[in-house]
């Protein structure tokens, strides 16, 4: 009984501590994020630095799990009337957030109302385009961005008699190199891809300037339909399925768990996120490099430009003016060019403003770290077209799973590539229609 009473006491005390307000009226700003590892440090340091720089506001950064976990928690919290002020949402969640007009506060409005300086034109066009409406109104604050690159093992290239300083540029060249590598240097794998739909559907389409869906990949309206069963798409998956039979192509899974086959030396070529950098640098015990994504040379206009991965910060609706002022101040603090430049060089994510990119370039950083510039070159390769500005499909998280299922069926050989991509389109469209129905009422 005594134990019970003490416990109750402890509970009550804990509840008291949790609800006790600080003595002075400091406005607390909740920031929910999904950053782990070194990037978690970066987030915490940003919050600490901002809190030290002024006394009126206090940013409290909370890790809420993976990207989907964080978004889930934010949605649940909003529905329960308890949303955080700032929520980090990954790029695939963009359409869902944008459609929720009452649930979010557009960043452009926020900055204007708070009187903070904010210039969408200062962002890299591929970045600003991704997070803006069709009318150019920026809705969320870009935070961490990455893009797709091809990582390759120079030692394996040498062993296979390939020139390690002239990596393959096109898909046919990649296939040839992979066959050679598999025959000589790496018997279990020729090449692999991680994030299968992001690399082979989303980035693939953008890089070839062919639509993923109608209406500028959904940016111009919710009544968009998928176009990923085009001959170019089907040909690509037919090639992958063919090469998967003898392990020239090794399927790396839906997320990044397959990336380990690159650092272990098993797969000599890995096409995945530029965010893989830190991992390669720490764990690859061989000479390595990266290059831009491959393309099919007979597709007109390829290569176009690549698009983003990563996440942006969304401001949730329903908070008071003073709180929004604090959020705006924090964003202004984050936008500072020096800070952006430092974030880029420390985290391995891309710089998101043109000024930060120029500044880092001028500092000579890329001479010693050329691999951090590769994704930037892809991202800014050409001015974005309506097929390469970005993509905005509702339910994209589910749709990616559907696509992955169909790609897996094609690679298993249970469906032909054409059947699989047709099914990917029709099942994807059904999910789009469901999304359209719930958001446009």
């Amino acid at each position, binding site marked *: 009984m005594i134990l019970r009473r003490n416990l109750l006491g402890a509970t009550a005390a804990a509840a008291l501590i949790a609800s006790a307000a600080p003595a002075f009226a400091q406005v607390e700003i909740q920031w929910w994020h999904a950053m*782990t*590892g070194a990037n978690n440090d970066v987030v915490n340091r940003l919050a600490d630095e901002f809190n030290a720089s002024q006394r009126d506001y206090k940013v409290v950064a*909370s890790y809420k*799990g993976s990207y989907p976990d964080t978004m*889930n928690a934010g949605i649940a919290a909003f*529905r329960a009337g*308890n949303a955080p002020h700032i929520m980090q949402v990954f790029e695939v969640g963009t359409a869902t957030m944008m459609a929720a007009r009452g649930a979010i506060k557009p960043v452009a409005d926020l900055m204007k109302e708070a009187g903070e300086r904010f210039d969408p034109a200062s962002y890299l066009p591929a970045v600003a385009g991704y997070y803006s409406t069709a009318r150019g109104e920026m809705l969320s604050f870009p935070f961490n961005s990455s893009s797709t690159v091809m990582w390759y093992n120079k030692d394996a290239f040498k062993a296979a008699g390939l020139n390690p300083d002239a990596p393959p540029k096109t898909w046919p060249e990649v296939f040839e190199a992979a066959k050679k590598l598999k025959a000589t240097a790496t018997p279990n794998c020729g090449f692999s891809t991680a994030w299968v739909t992001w690399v082979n559907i989303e980035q693939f389409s953008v890089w070839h300037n062919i639509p993923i869906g109608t209406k500028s990949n959904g940016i111009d309206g919710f009544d968009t339909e998928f176009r990923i069963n085009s001959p170019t798409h089907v040909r690509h998956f037919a090639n992958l399925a063919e090469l998967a039979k003898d392990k020239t192509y090794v399927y790396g899974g839906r997320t990044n768990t397959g990336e380990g086959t690159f650092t272990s030396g098993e797969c000599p070529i890995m096409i995945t996120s530029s965010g893989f950098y830190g991992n390669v640098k720490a764990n690859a015990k061989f000479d390595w490099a990266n290059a831009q994504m491959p393309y099919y040379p007979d597709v007109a206009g390829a290569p176009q430009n690549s698009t983003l991965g990563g996440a942006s910060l969304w401001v949730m609706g329903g908070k008071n003016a003073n709180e929004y002022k604090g959020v705006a101040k924090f964003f202004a603090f984050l936008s500072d060019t020096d800070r952006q430049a430092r974030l880029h060089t420390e985290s391995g994510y891309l710089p998101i403003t043109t000024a930060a990119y120029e500044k880092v370039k001028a500092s000579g950083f890329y001479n010693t770290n050329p691999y951090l510039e590769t994704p930037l070159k892809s991202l800014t390769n050409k001015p974005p077209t309506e097929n390469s500005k970005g993509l905005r499909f509702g339910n994209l998280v589910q749709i990616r799973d559907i696509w992955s299922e169909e790609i897996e069926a094609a690679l298993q050989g249970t469906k032909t590539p054409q059947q699989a991509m047709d099914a990917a389109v029709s099942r994807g469209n059904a999910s789009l229609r469901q999304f359209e129905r719930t958001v446009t009422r």
Partner: protein
Amino acid sequence: MVERETLLGRVVPHVVLLVGVCIVAFPVYLALLASTYDAATVQNGQMSLLPGSQMLENYERIIFSGARATTREPVGTMLLNSFLMALIIALGKIAISLISAYAIVFFRFPFRMAAFWLIFVTLMLPVEVRIYPTYKIVADLGLLDTYTGLTLPLIASATATLLFRQFFMTVPEELVEASKIDGAGPVRFFKDTLLPLSITTMAALFVIQFIYGWNQYLWPLLITTRDNMQTIVIGIKKMIVTQDALTEWQLAMATAVLALLPPVLVVVLMQKLFVKGLVETEK
């Protein structure tokens, strides 16, 4: 045993048990192994079946400096939170299940079976299925980020009530008769007769529910927003599920090993009482 044991009869149990132990313990052994290697060896899948040389470094890092500060809270705070959560859940469940099972088994009153079913059916409704509505209720009650919010929704459970019911049904009716003859009412019977008999069953349930509480993941993740409310299981997942960042498997596994220690200790230290309690439930 009455008949004489053949050689085969003596060897077979050992072989079966050894194989069982190997299968059951291997994944945890592997976690222990992984916590003794450096990051690259683990990441590249080049571990051997013998421990590596980085054990001290790895454990020192997670205990004193954090996994490159992935976990901002020291392991100690997370362990304490997990411990408090598990303890409150275990004790709370035992308390409320004990009295409700008592009511169902020893009283005759209208809707007795309905009451049992109302509780029993909740077995079919794990936290995962009702998580969002439950979250909303907890938020409406203003219990987010509190130990109450963390534990109360998990305290109601059919398992404990079911087990107490099983146990109570084995209590000889003569005992009730005897105490009735002594003039004891239901309260005194409960206090003087039933409660002492139930000690071992409570111990068994304590172990089960302590582990249930300790191992919660989805609920604490949703309900807590402050780092100082974080539990150790969340801390581990936080090290493993990474976006772009490097998973420091060796440190995650070292934390997993540390996180295992308290519940394993509870199980091993209370094993005798625990098994005895279950035996009594089964009689």
